[in-house]
């Protein structure tokens, strides 16, 4: 069992239907949400970042970034993997991009982000897996749980594409399986503990 009291970083994986799900989570976050959030959201190679940036900037985060090589992560910020590149943690504070082969037919791959974040953050990591039509992220999320981190999965019944959250539930029991609103509430509680710590 992970504990949200320890959370210092949140990683989110989303695929098909991910835009709506991400908006559903972000719109319920408290003002001045501090914990840095890193997202792998599968999207087309030529997807329009300017549009996504504008949309995601409507919410609590001071900075909405598409990850560049050697990106330093800071509080009050949310980071998105660029299309067609994997992202990994080079150290606790630095994100790097990679052009390694597809994993689970995906680049960026949620598993790669989750495994790499987990190797640095362990019990201080919260992993969230949302809607999607493949099984990317299930293995990585299981790894987060095994390392003592907190894991939350969108209820497949509510997901636009249930396969991704379903795949996770089939291999282990996450700490929470819930709707978007409840997942953002969990993030808000984790944020209270994080605020006290820093």
């Amino acid at each position: 069992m992970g504990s949200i009291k320890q959370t210092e970083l949140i990683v989110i994986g989303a695929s098909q239907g991910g835009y709506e799900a991400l908006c559903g989570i972000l719109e319920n976050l408290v003002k001045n949400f501090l914990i840095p959030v890193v997202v792998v959201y599968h999207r087309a190679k030529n997807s329009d970042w300017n549009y996504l940036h504008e949309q995601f900037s409507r919410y609590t985060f001071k900075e909405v970034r598409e990850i560049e090589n050697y990106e330093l992560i800071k509080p009050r910020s949310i980071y998105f993997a660029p299309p067609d590149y994997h992202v990994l943690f080079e150290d606790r504070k630095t994100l790097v991009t990679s052009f390694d082969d597809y994993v689970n037919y995906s680049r960026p791959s949620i598993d790669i982000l989750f495994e790499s974040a987990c190797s640095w953050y362990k019990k201080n990591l919260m992993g969230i897996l949302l809607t999607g039509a493949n099984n990317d992220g299930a293995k990585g999320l299981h790894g987060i749980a095994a390392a003592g981190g907190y894991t939350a999965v969108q209820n497949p019944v509510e997901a636009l594409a249930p396969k991704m959250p379903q795949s996770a539930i089939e291999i282990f029991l996450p700490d929470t399986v819930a709707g978007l609103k409840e997942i953002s509430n969990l993030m808000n509680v984790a944020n209270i503990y994080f605020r006290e710590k820093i």
Partner: protein
Amino acid sequence: MTNLEIRLLLEAIKEHYRYDFTEYKSSSLRRRLDIFLSACQKQYFSELIPLVLHNPDKLRLLINTLTIGITEMFRDPPIFRFIVEKIIPSLRSFSLINIWSAGCSTGQEPFSLSILMKEAGLLNRSHVFGTDINQDFINAASEGIYSEEEFSLYSKNYVESGCPVSLSEYFHVRYGKGIVNDDIRKHVSFFKHNLVTDHDFVECQLIMCSNVLIYFNKELQNKAWNLFYNSLHNFGYLVLGKQEKLPDHMLVDRFKKVSDDLPIYQKAIHG
């Protein structure tokens, strides 16, 4: 302990074979070493040291795992469109045009560039040098043979790059594979070259290096920027991968950015 073992392994390879991976990004390196370790059915990274030192074939396998060969012809069409529209016209004044595709993997990028030169009517005045650290890739590149699936992807990229004819003009088909035509191949040559340990290569008007330096740490990247600077003709162009950019200190007086949204630079002359 694991980090110590990996360091020892990389030092051994560096000492013995002159392949230096010690300054590669550790996150990507670790992932690939994990893959190699399980492929060898070993438990500890230190067990790989005798394996690799006494068996050059294993070293080759390891190098193939550590240096990845993922590339496409006309990958990132907007970049190639910029080369066609903005860079090639300015190369016309040269009697001899040298182009260097650094870290060219299995040759797709140098052949793409040579095809563009042909379309511009500059093929006979141009030569493309493809280099890679990996000898297996260089051997494959020299063959110039690509599968049918690869070929259909390349054709799509080619069309998106705004090119006028069909990519099949530059290939002939044998045994279900696409083979690059001789007139193109004659103007492309491949060499093994190590961006970390080797020196200037040839003076070029255009250097393309995409998705190679993202695996280097910052010191190693700086070595490569300097190497490219020294290898470029005055006002020559440097084209990087979509996610890459030159650090600010290289933009003070050495390079200037020539596109708002693409990682394309021109060597600046000061003084």
